[in-house]
């Protein structure tokens, strides 16, 4: 890392998060003054006015500029989405436990004043107004959660960056003007389209003005700058911004700067997270190659500029409600950058820039961007090695996605071969064709599978609320055999699948009518061609998914009941129900819990008994969700449907806190298994067995993503021979077992300390001792201490 980057990073990390009211002020004013305008035009104008007027800055040392707010790490307020939580939390927002924001008394007062205008007008209130009483009750029960969707924009999308870089903002204005010119004034349909086009022109003009303002600011600062080298940098910033304010970028620096500007502007338009940059090595690679060949740039400069861009991504902050914050611990924004994979021609598309991106992300060790590497058979050993060098740094990146599963899965859904080859990760592990796919390939509502399963055991009655949303499917005492239980589960989970889609429909309808994204639509094909914004069906492809939480717990619970209750008869039905209701109280309860935990097969050990139950039980949900449609069905896009998804971020923790004891031996309130990973500490046969279990899931069906976190102790990948083994394991997982995704968490010292105190929670923990690996629990205390000490050393 250069000294400049070290200074910038240090300043970033020491900057305290604050609130920025400028956007909220302008949006409120525009809405107030233009109540008569159609919603798209209101929003186009509000975006333009904000971008024309908001405070901008260029900080010391910066080479890439732009921000979504008036200061680094200042979160803008988006009152049109939701204000109820904000009104409640604003007073103590600087003292919140998770994710605080500093705010002055004046700012707090102004937020309250702004909120008063929005009361009764927000997206959240609209969504609730659209829910039937039963759906409202299901949502209130938290079996299905959609708060995040009702209180913010969609996000989970990537614009058509290659085309934007080819045409520039001016080129897009030309496209919109041409579409406007072709409208028939006598057509009602075209009257409606005209509103969208006018809004797009406002939004594009706003983006252009915003960039031009940076040019002027840099030029002014350069004139006052006394240091020659900084003056030259500021001049270059001014020149860069002037060139791309309307024009198409001519080189790498301009292309990257425009990419970052748009990433910021799109996050002024909407507060949806997981706004992703697509295949950045493919979008920027040609610029880099040309500049490198002509001597316009060298590798180190490009790397420093990319690093500056990552700092810009890290400076973005979004303030969310406390309750939503729990589902996304650490305030992540999932601005994904994808590299590697095959190209539209089917050949390996990894290029020189792929490596520079990988290295710069590894050097910076920031939380943004969220870096994904696309794996395919032809991914070189060299590129895999470069990826492993970053994994070693222990911050969870990069994650891997598998071309071998994703591309056929897309083609089977009607995506063209070339587009399928051009997919990127969106947010964390989910995938879409950048610039052609609607919002939320995943990220719709969350369904808590274990709440549904507990209701299945008790004739449909949810033990938390006491309500029976779908009564009469039988209870454990009455099921004659295990298939009867599975059948009851099918009925229950299919009911909740429909309920989740019904809730989504209300949310999507609210988003469409109240908060359409004009600029994001302009940059996504084929919104301009169709004269529709994304929520109206403007995208070429539009498949979505919600998140299902508790996958491994579901299979493990079923396996425990099937084996111990129905086959062995060693656990009584009444005994089990009573123990669950009492959270395994008393010594007998604890004995039963341990039996459920230790004496029945668990997902993640390559055991067909339980793995097949996971597939069958999850399949019940998939069967139903695949029949259902989203609000864009039949309105233009290919798709318009749903698939299952498991990239449930950290929602397994709050979801677990809302579920009582479960038949897999899990105590009430403790976290559910995250994503599709095995339940914590129950995969005791090592990583290959986990890969085998995961490989049995129908990856092309669970197209919202199969999230797998693997733990790796730092010592396991020290030598070249160890790294070769890790590569071979990855290749086998992706090429032979059909894995969707994997990411590696390097085991921390804290985990090891906890494992020493609570060995039963860490039965899966493998560590490298010397030339060999061993289960941590099997080591003598002295050796454990030694490993802990070594782990401390390897990370400082």
């Amino acid at each position: 890392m250069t000294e400049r980057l070290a200074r910038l990073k240090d300043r970033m990390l020491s900057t305290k998060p604050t609130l920025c009211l400028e956007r909220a002020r302008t949006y409120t004013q525009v809405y107030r003054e233009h109540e008569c305008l159609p919603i798209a035009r209101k929003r186009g104008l509000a975006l333009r006015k904000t971008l024309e007027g908001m405070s901008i800055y260029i900080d010391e040392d910066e080479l890439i500029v732009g921000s979504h707010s008036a200061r680094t790490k200042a979160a803008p307020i988006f009152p049109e989405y939701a204000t109820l939580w904000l009104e409640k939390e604003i007073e103590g927002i600087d003292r919140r436990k998770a994710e605080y924001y500093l705010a002055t008394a004046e700012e707090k007062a102004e937020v309250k004043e702004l909120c008063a205008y929005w009361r009764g007008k927000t997206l959240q209130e609209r969504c609730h107004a659209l829910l039937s009483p039963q759906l409202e009750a299901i949502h209130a029960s938290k079996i299905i959660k959609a708060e995040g969707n009702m209180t913010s924009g969609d996000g989970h999308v990537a614009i058509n960056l290659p085309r934007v870089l080819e045409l520039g903002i001016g080129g897009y204005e030309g496209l919109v003007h041409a579409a406007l010119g072709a409208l028939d004034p006598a057509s009602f349909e075209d009257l409606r389209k005209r509103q969208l086009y006018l809004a797009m022109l406002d939004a594009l003009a706003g983006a252009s003005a915003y960039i031009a303002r940076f040019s002027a600011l840099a030029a002014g600062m350069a004139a006052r700058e006394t240091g020659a080298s900084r003056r030259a940098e500021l001049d270059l910033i001014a020149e860069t911004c002037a060139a791309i304010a309307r024009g198409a970028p001519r080189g790498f620096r301009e292309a990257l700067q425009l990419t970052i500007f748009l990433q910021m502007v799109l996050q002024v338009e909407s507060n949806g997270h997981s706004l992703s940059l697509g295949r950045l090595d493919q979008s920027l690679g040609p610029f880099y190659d040309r500049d490198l060949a002509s001597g316009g740039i060298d590798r180190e400069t490009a790397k420093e500029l990319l690093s500056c861009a990552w700092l810009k991504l890290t400076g973005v902050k979004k303030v969310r409600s406390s309750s939503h914050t729990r589902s996304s611990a650490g305030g992540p924004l999932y601005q994904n950058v994808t590299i590697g994979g095959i190209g539209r021609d089917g050949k390996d598309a990894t290029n020189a820039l792929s490596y520079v991106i990988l290295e710069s992300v590894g050097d910076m060790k920031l939380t943004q961007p969220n870096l994904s590497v696309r794996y395919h058979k032809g991914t070189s050993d060299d590129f895999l090695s470069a990826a492993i060098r970053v994994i070693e740094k222990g911050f969870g990146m990069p994650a891997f996605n598998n071309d071998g599963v994703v591309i056929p899965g897309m083609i089977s859904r009607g995506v063209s071969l070339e587009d399928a080859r051009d997919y990127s990760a969106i947010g964390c592990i989910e995938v879409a064709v950048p610039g052609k796919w609607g919002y939320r390939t995943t990220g719709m509502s969350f369904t808590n599978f274990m709440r549904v399963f507990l209701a299945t055991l008790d004739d449909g009655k949810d033990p938390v609320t006491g309500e029976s949303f779908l009564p009469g499917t039988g209870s454990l005492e009455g099921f004659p055999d295990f298939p009867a239980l599975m059948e009851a589960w099918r009925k229950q989970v299919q009911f909740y699948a429909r309920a989740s889609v019904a809730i989504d429909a209300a949310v999507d309808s609210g988003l469409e009518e109240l908060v359409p994204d004009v600029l994001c639509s302009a940059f996504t094909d084929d919104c301009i061609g169709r004269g529709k914004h994304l929520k109206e069906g403007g995208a070429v492809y539009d498949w979505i998914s919600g998140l299902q939480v508790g996958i491994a717990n579901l299979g493990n619970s079923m396996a425990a009941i099937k084996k111990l209750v129905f086959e062995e008869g060693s656990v009584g039905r009444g005994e089990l129900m009573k123990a669950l209701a009492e959270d395994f109280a008393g010594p007998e309860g604890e004995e039963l819990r341990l039996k459920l935990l230790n004496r029945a097969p668990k997902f993640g050990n390559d055991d067909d008994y339980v793995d097949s139950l996971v597939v069958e039980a999850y399949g019940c949900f998939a069967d139903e969700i695949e029949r259902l449609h989203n609000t864009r069905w039949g309105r233009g896009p290919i798709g318009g449907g749903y698939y299952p998804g498991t990239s449930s971020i950290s929602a397994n923790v709050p979801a677990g806190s809302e579920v009582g004891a479960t038949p897999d031996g899990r105590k009430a309130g403790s976290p559910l298994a995250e994503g599709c990973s095995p339940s914590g500490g129950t995969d005791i046969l090592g990583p290959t067995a986990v890969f085998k279990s995961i490989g049995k899931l129908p990856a092309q069906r669970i197209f919202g993503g199969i999230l797998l976190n693997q733990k790796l102790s730092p010592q396991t990948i020290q030598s070249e021979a160890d790294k070769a083994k890790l590569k071979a394991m990855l290749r086998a997982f992706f090429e032979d077992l059909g894995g969707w995704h994997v990411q590696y968490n390097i085991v921390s010292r804290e985990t090891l300390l906890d494992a020493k105190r609570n060995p039963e929670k860490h039965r899966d923990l493998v560590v490298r001792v010397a030339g060999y690996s061993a289960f941590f629990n099997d080591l003598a205390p002295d050796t454990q201490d030694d490993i802990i000490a070594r782990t401390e050393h390897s990370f400082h």
Partner: protein
Amino acid sequence: MREVDGRPSPDRSKPVPRGLDSLCPSLAIRVAGRDFEDGELVTELLKDEAFFRKSDGGVTFSGGEPLIHRDFLLNCVAALRNKGIAVAIETCLAVKDPPLERLLAWPIHWLLDLKHVLPGIFREKTGGDLGTVLGNLTRIAAGAASVTFRIPLIPGFNESDEDRKGIFDFLAGLDRAGDGPPKVHILPYHDLAAGKYSHLGRSYPYAGTARLDPRIPEMWKKDALRRGFHASIGG
């Protein structure tokens, strides 16, 4: 409760009656290892087939002592080799009349323990018969193309200069079927077993006393390389 090494420890020196462990829900009683029929073991091993193939890896039969499971071992090796899975056998060689002729018919990579070349010390420290060990070693070396000699360096047993000279001289004079110089793994003593002892509630006799000077393995490696052997520490 009795204490071992200052920690409370139940008496685990007596064997657990078969099946008792399955009655204990908390896993406090655990039986290490599992009984397998040979076909059953091969099925279990083949679960990792994809990983063996991608890594050019395979299955190593290791200690305890694989050579005492004569037919079981032969059946497993045959089944795996017929599937094209690479097989290695790691053995201490202290086994009377192992089925070497039939094993040597398969392309197996052999990992052969060579702890000492003096029968008296060998008997005193291991209780084994060096004649048997070296007899087996000689036959395998003469009959197998792929052999690695593994020398565990144990303080107070075989780490001296004379020990080294004896072992290396023996290797240099050995009649071997494999091409090229002998391959040697020098394995410095480690105390992974301490964990097993403590799980069994037994005191670990070497605790704290057996520390190998880290320069010794380096010296062994240097000497081995000087003699033209392939040598590495660990393996």
